[in-house]
């Protein structure tokens, strides 16, 4: 088989890591080939971030209409088919946008499945048959798939992963979610809002366990108020189908056996790196467990091969993958860039939302840092009350000596949009003084961030006096 073409840069995977790397590479003058087996945009655009948020925003409207004291609408119902249709339309619009950017940057896009032949050559199986390409530099950005657990068989009908959940045409009466991580709690919010009876089974002592404890406590109590049942310290042993209904067998901390049954079961136990058929075995590449091992320049153990995004582990976030994509593309183009994982924000799209950047109070203490904390509840924020969203709070963790902000945690309305400012504050090494004394517009939710910063130095205006 002849080699069709030599590229400066080949990117395998067209998700938020891969396509961003391809564009950055092209900006820096590289002749780029991007290979994607499915659709550009990857899990994020097609099966993750974007579709869930589209659905969530309709669910939020639905939930608000139902609970509104002033808007009186009888018989409001969610048209699931229309909802899925709208979701698909959003995906299509964004997908067209990415395709345009790829074309506009002069990048060659090939739809097909890639496999390494050797350290420089990639074979692509596409509708035009098999072709080989040589790349001076290659970026692996193949992403991840839903993780599985033993004794639980995903059948796509009653036991589902997030992918199938997004295609449901009717609202299940009961939904049991295995896994109380980010994906689990987001789906819990969506289907609770749609009217399903939702139960979450979590193996660890807490849901969203990487977040700050006060945030976890806050979200847990909001969930309970919404009648979402949470079973922590509970381990799933297996599933079976009993008279057409799926059943989950689990044991709690004391070893007591429990049986859960409901119309649908969602497996949301995280994601596994996707490297099937990639031919990594032919490269003798160094791995870190199931993940491809990389350094802070996104270099793998093999010269001229980089890896980014979910396939490298760490936080499995689209924006982290994009940031890594830029770093890899710049290094592949002869620049010297490094990734800094300490200031990557986390977002959880529940109702209300959760967001954070930097260290939790516990993590900061574990590192032996002397810290101070500040809090401000949305209950005391004018805009939050006006919007009918008084739940949640902002918490700030700052280093005591210099006042450097090292962590910001938000639970509440629009938390994910609010974290942008604090992320910049961390990146610029701002202290509580700057964050507290920067004038914020009134009335807005951002005032809560300013007040939380002031609270850390006992200067919050709209809080009872601190002694």
């Amino acid at each position, binding site marked *: 088989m002849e080699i069709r073409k030599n590229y400066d840069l080949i990117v395998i995977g067209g998700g938020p890591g891969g396509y961003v790397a391809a564009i950055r590479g092209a900006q820096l003058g590289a002749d780029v080939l991007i290979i994607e087996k499915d659709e550009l945009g990857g899990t994020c655009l097609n099966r993750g971030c974007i579709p869930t948020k589209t659905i969530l925003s309709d669910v939020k409207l639905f939930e608000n209409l139902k609970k509104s004291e002033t808007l009186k609408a009888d018989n409001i119902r969610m048209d699931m088919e229309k909802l899925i249709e709208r979701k698909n339309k959003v995906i299509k619009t964004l997908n067209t946008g990415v395709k345009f950017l790829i074309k506009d940057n002069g990048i060659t896009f090939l739809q097909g499945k890639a496999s390494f032949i050797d350290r420089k050559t990639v074979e692509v199986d596409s509708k035009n048959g098999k072709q080989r390409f040589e790349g001076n530099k290659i970026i692996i950005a193949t992403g991840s798939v839903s993780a599985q657990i033993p004794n639980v068989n995903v059948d796509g009908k009653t036991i589902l992963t997030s992918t199938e959940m997004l295609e449901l045409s009717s609202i299940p009466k009961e939904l049991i979610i295995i896994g109380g991580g980010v994906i689990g709690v987001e789906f819990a919010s969506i289907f609770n809002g749609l009217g399903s009876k939702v139960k979450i089974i979590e193996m660890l002592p807490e849901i969203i366990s990487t977040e700050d404890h006060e945030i976890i406590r806050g979200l847990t109590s909001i969930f309970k108020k919404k009648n979402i049942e949470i079973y922590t310290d509970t381990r799933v042993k297996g599933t079976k189908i009993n008279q057409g209904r799926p059943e989950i067998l689990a044991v709690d901390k004391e070893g007591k056996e429990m049986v859960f049954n409901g119309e649908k079961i969602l497996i949301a136990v995280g994601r596994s790196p996707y490297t099937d058929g990639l031919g990594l075995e032919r490269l003798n590449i160094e791995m870190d467990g199931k993940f491809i091992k990389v350094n802070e320049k996104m270099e793998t153990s093999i010269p001229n091969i980089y890896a980014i995004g979910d396939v490298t582990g760490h936080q499995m976030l689209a924006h982290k993958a994009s940031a890594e994509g830029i770093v890899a593309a710049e290094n592949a183009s002869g620049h010297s860039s490094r990734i800094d994982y300490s200031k990557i924000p986390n977002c959880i799209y529940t109702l209300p939302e959760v967001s954070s950047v930097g260290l939790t109070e516990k993590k900061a203490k574990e590192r032996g840092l002397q810290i101070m904390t500040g809090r401000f509840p949305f209950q005391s924020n004018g805009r939050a009350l006006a919007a009918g969203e008084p739940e949640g709070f902002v918490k700030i963790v700052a280093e005591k000596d*210099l*006042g*450097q902000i090292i962590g910001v945690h938000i639970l509440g309305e629009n938390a994910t949009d609010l974290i942008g400012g604090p992320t910049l504050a961390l990146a*610029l*090494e701002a202290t509580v003084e700057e964050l507290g004394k920067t004038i914020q517009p009134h009335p807005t939710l951002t005032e809560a961030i300013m007040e939380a910063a002031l609270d850390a130095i006992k200067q919050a205006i709209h809080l009872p006096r601190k002694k």
Partner: protein
Amino acid sequence: MAVEVVLPALGLTVEKGTILKWLKKEGETVSKGESLYEVEADKVTTEVESPASGVLKKILVPEGIEVPILTVVAVITEKGEELPEKYLSMEIKRTEPLIEKPTVEMMEPEVKIPTVPGEIKAVPAARQLAREKGINLSSIRGSGPGGTILLKDIKLFLAGKTPPPSQVFATPTAKKMAEKEAVPLSLIKGTGVSGRIMKEDVIRAKAELEKREEKILTPPIKPPSKFQLGQTIKMNSMRKAIAKRMVQSKFTAPHIYFYNDVEMGKLIALRDEIVYEVEKQEGIRLSINDFIIKAVALTLKEFPLLNSMVLGEEIKIFPEINVGLAVALEDGLIVPAIPKADQLGLIEIARYRADLIERARQSKLTLEEIERGTFTISSLAQYDIVFFTAILNPPQSGILTLGKVEEKPVVRDGSIVIRKIMRQGLSVDHRIIDGAVAAQFLQSLKKRLENPFLTFLI
């Protein structure tokens, strides 16, 4: 006599510099202080002055070549003097085509600091041109290290081009930390976006400074790994002398020992405040030990009995106060002394200290330097020793020991506060010095160290 022109140390982390341009040609007459060449290091360009007046006899490093700092780049001779032969072999010939460097005007210095009002730094050539053209230096922003005004800044000004605004880019946290740790921002190389100084940069610069400090105070000594278990070693002459003198001291002079804690915060702050300026102006880095030497000398003047020796049935008070410094060597210990330390300024003390320690390690001390001591100071701070007991260095009657300065919780006005504490110890010969006298000496020394302005300004 031929004078070597060396590439100066251009900054804290700078190891190499590239000669951008020779401002004088070989054979041209130069005067001391005149700009001789332009050098670029870490993207900052600066002009280097001629160290002497004479003829630029030979340029050893051509333009566009990068060399380590302290490399001899040229030789200046007196008129009519021949170039000493040894320099001929030192010339670096350009073998590769010169890499095109961006022109000086286009380069933006990475770190800039605003000029401090009342203190304008400018290279002499810039000063001269400004004077000729009647330009007020304060209206010009310097682009050299530390905001120094370079010749090109004046030229740019004359051409009607204002250099980019001078500003230190540092994050709020980095600024606070730099202030707290007394690390001048102008010495820090920023690694953030557009050279912004980040907290990590300050931490790195501080470590760098401390490392430098340690090197100056106490050059590392190799551990005595040459010894092996079961080995019998013949004492060398130094070891024999130490052994003999220690026995003589311990068995003739009954030792008594005293300790007190000294709050070092103010003294350290004073030293940190002036150290960079002094180093820039005087080329010597003041150490805390220099202040202690001076304070000890002043206290000895107040208590002459501590500066004496037993001679038969007489107490002989030494006519001079010569403070000895115990210097650890690979094979032993030696105590060179700074003469008349009570009459010397801090900078002179620092020069003596640096020179004596350096030559002690090279075994190049004179007998006089070793024997003139009238009192000894011994510090084991570098080994994290909190306090220790020393044996008198005969015929002296007093020896001061210094422990490590540590932040410790202490009670002041009923509250627990953190203070920088050093424990000092004093051993004296009880035959002639009573406990109360020794205690008063130590108390007086403590007061001097704790009130540095009073001690060193008046």
